């Protein structure tokens, strides 16, 4: 057969693409289970970290079952509980809906000392892509017990620093409602002394857009829980 002819070229392309597609589909299907498991475990690690429980891939499942387990809820904007599995709710899909149609998942974590913390998932946008996190509140449903953030591809050393402890620790002890009980969220701000401010933490210099993204994310996500938290 003429190796430079049209028939040969077309056949060659078709056969090659079919083979490649088959190989990739096979690999994708056979690895899917492990990959989904990794994502699930990573989520459990993050959830536990937001209440200060440090786990790794080998211990996350056990600790999650012990401290959180089935103790999850899905609520709507009015603060009423609705049907659904909190763990499998995809926040990025929920955020595309109107606020009143969204499902708001939350997790209740029982610590070793008997205290219960409410963990609220967060999702927003940074400079280059999605950012997300979990914030845990004390039983007063106001004071932050812990917060963690992560990102898909923020600038290393700048926006990416939101996943570092030095950025996350100052959130502890801040409050999301002011004295009169109205919702204020927590802002990430620059150039002011935040140590005495109940509703602000220091931004990252050079990571302004990511920092603002965190502010918006907290406001957008927490506002949906306002009714529930006030009850």
């Amino acid at each position, binding site marked *: 057969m003429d*190796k*430079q002819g049209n028939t*040969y*070229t077309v056949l*060659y*392309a078709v056969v*090659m*693409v079919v083979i*490649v597609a088959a*190989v*990739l589909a096979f*690999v*994708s299907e056979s*690895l899917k289970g*492990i*990959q989904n498991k*990794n*994502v699930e475990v*990573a989520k459990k690690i993050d959830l536990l970290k937001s209440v200060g429980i440090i786990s790794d*891939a080998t211990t996350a499942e056990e600790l999650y079952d012990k401290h959180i387990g089935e103790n999850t809820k899905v609520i709507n904007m009015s603060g009423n509980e609705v049907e659904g599995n909190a763990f499998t709710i995809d926040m990025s899909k929920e955020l595309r809906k109107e606020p009143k149609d969204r499902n708001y998942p939350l997790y209740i974590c029982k610590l070793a000392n008997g205290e219960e913390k409410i963990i609220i998932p967060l999702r927003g946008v940074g400079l280059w892509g999605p950012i997300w996190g979990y914030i845990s509140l004390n039983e007063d449903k106001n004071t932050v017990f812990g917060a963690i953030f992560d990102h*898909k*591809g923020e*600038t*290393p*050393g*700048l926006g990416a620093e939101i996943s570092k402890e030095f950025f996350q620790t100052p959130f502890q002890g801040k409050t999301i409602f002011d004295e009169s009980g109205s919702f204020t969220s927590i802002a990430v701000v620059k150039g002011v002394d935040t140590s005495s401010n109940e509703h602000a933490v220091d931004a990252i210099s*050079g990571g302004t857009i990511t920092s603002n993204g965190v502010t918006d994310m907290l406001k957008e996500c927490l506002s949906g829980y306002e009714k529930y938290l006030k009850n």
Partner: protein
Amino acid sequence: MSDKEPLFSAKNRKLISNPLNAQNPITIQVLGICSALAVTAKLEPAIVMSISVMFVLVFANVIISLLRNTIPARIRIIVQLVVVAALVILVDQILKAFAYEVSKQLSVFVGLIITNCIIMGRLEAFALGNRPWQSALDGVGNAAGYGVILIIVAFFRELLGSGTLTLPGLGTLQIIPQIVYDWGYVNNGFMILPPMALITVGIIIWVQRSRNKDLIES
């Protein structure tokens, strides 16, 4: 080439050693600069990226070399691209399944291996005209030449930019001790930004050429 040629003959050894120095893909051919900027802010992603590129380049070289007598000339670039893309997706899937943490860090950069000029360059320039074994060695050599520069750049960028070194399996190690900071030393934040990767590559090119005058273009 006779079949009796030893696997590591002088000529074959040169396929590996040349790209490390006199034919280095980054400093001499100035290919693959884009990813050298992107993944070198920290050491660990640079190392994983180098390993991933080596995997892709060696297998792509071997596959294209095996197919070289069957590929229709008119669609050879497309064939190369499909092979490279398939291998990159494989790497990405495998990292996601077995090295989830690292795959999160590298995120889009694994996918960008497809656009790494070194890979297409080697397929076009070498694998299409050489036998599989030689092509595999050429792949190892060029990926190593690429990786060495990536790791050198990442080493200096992370050390001077963050004062740390991040190694696979060891996590982030604080290299510059606290006492130095107490004396007034400050991390150079500019090192973490892409322009400093270019400047660091430039310095490596300068050092290499001043040591080996033959490399200086007239």
